[in-house]
């Protein structure tokens, strides 16, 4: 069943991609092939592969339980928030929270998670910013 859904999504994607490809406006000067042909070939291959999934699906993989899916979903949300807050809070503070959260969810005890968060964040800051001179996001505190 998973493969059928995947094939359906793939087919929609392929059709969407193909339609978009035909709508590319051709420039005044163009080569003999133009910008649409290759994307259309790609969309065709994608479409054919998707139809194959619809017709002959593989056995479904073991999807995790709802709880685990939520776990991954929350991790994604935290990472999105991290990406947004990085320039606001600065690297060290934002990373402390994100790394600590991941460590906690991967099975660390709360105290250990806090330590991993602080350790990762400060460790990366020292190695990459102070030693290697990479530019990391600066927050209001300057780090």
């Amino acid at each position, binding site marked *: 069943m998973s493969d059928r859904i995947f094939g359906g999504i793939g087919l929609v994607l*392929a059709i969407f991609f193909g339609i978009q490809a035909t709508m590319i406006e051709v420039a005044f000067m*163009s080569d003999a092939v133009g910008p649409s042909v*290759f994307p259309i070939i790609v969309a065709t291959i994608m479409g054919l592969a998707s139809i194959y999934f619809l017709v002959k699906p593989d056995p479904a993989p073991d999807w995790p339980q709802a709880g685990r899916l939520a776990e991954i979903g929350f991790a994604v949300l935290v990472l999105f928030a991290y990406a947004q807050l990085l320039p606001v809070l600065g690297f060290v503070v934002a990373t402390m929270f994100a790394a600590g959260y991941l460590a906690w969810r991967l099975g660390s005890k709360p105290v250990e998670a806090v330590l991993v968060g602080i350790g990762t964040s400060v460790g990366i800051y020292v190695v990459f910013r102070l030693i290697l001179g990479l530019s990391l996001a600066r927050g209001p505190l300057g780090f």
Partner: protein
Amino acid sequence: MELLSSLGDGFLVALTFQNIGLALLGCLLGTIMGALPGLGPSNGVAILIPLAFTLGLDATPALILLTSVYYGAMYGGRISSILLNIPGDEPAMMTCLDGYPMARKGQAGEALALSGIASFVGAFFATWGLVFLAPQLVKVALLFGPAEYFALFVLAFATLGGISSTNQAKAAFAAALGLGLAMIGVDTQTGVPRFTFGEVHLYDGIDFLVAIVGLFALSEVFIFLEHRGTDKDSSTGPKVQIGRIIPPWSMVRSCIPTMARTSVLGFIAGVLPGAGASLGSFISYSMEKRLVDRENTFGTGDPRGVAAPETGNNAAAGGALVPMLALGVPGSGTTAVLLAVLLALNITPGPLLFTNNPDVVWGLIAALFIGNVMLLVLNIPMIGLFTRVLMVPPRILMPIVAMISFVGIYGISGSTFDLVVMILFGIGGWVLRKLDVPLVPIILGTLLGNEMEVNLRRAVTIADGDYSVLFGSPLTIGLWSIAIIGFIMPMVAGKMLKRRMQLAKKTGEDTDLVD
């Protein structure tokens, strides 16, 4: 002779303090990454690319660092295979079969040392193979026109899904997805924006580094989140005593014929497109088992059963560099990631690389020799150091991996948009891995998509819009035939091979990134 003098020049390039230091660092990091279950060569190199890039390293030092990581990871994978019966990366899977039984018999140190020697032999011969074979392949490649290149790219995609994929339709889908992603952005030939939907960030396309780090490194974090606390959780394993770390000479001597044979076999497996190190170690082990296993000792801790796959996978790792450097078409997952390094540094791989940037090629090859010696030294006397690293549990390791991925990508562009795209790739990579869709063709598609299209358009434009030029020369017909055979053959033979590999690897389902 000319080859040797080029190689000599390469050593002059490689033997600077900076380059030796980078090679050492790469070897250390690579061995650690190879040893840790969950971090393999391709995601290890993927995490480090943006860093090498933002540190402002030149092409040669950056490549030296990253190929040392690549070679190091091939060495490191065996450590957890032998000690924990968990392959550190996929090519090390076969090493579990005899390595772990040896460790159970109290010969862990000997198994580690022997496999270190075997890795050295395999990698050493493969690097010589690279020296001799790559320039020959370059001579052939110089005959290629745009039509031949287009056919060659098709060949690369047709065979890459190849033997490691169970379902060719999924490999084809992955390739199309990657090619489609490469189309996003302004068309290089006419200047028309394609698939950008008015989003300015998309005008210069999706950065393939963002895609690579998301698909390889971040999706791994999600896999660990999914499996935490279940029996697929690899953080629990019995402790094994190391024992003596110098194998008796008789043991090494008994393995010499095995190492000689599997060096050649592994190298060939590596050069062939789409095979890579996993296949190299697999066929090496199977062949040796058939040839020398008279007393049925393979699988019970036979030293030859440790030497064979380790020689094979390291030889294949060197072999896979041949098509990557000479043709610009990688033969395996990690070499695809290494190709990304070259492209990010604005170096076009392929035959012209040897004439335009000989310092890069020969410096790299010389660095491989140097790195290989370093790895031998690191991996025999200092093996205890690496076994201690294995004690770092994923719950501490994976947050670090995730954060370093973010640092690398943010360092390149300083843009939150790229981070968001990377997370999307991470979650996409997780779903695709669940569905058994190979990730390597996606990466290869995003890397080669534009180049492939340019060659198609150039070929057809030169022929005044005649598409038959794509099949117009004997060379193109040859390439197309290999591509078609390479796509169809795995449907028949691949199923059998895959099933046997599955049977052979009782553990470690989740180290499923292709070498």
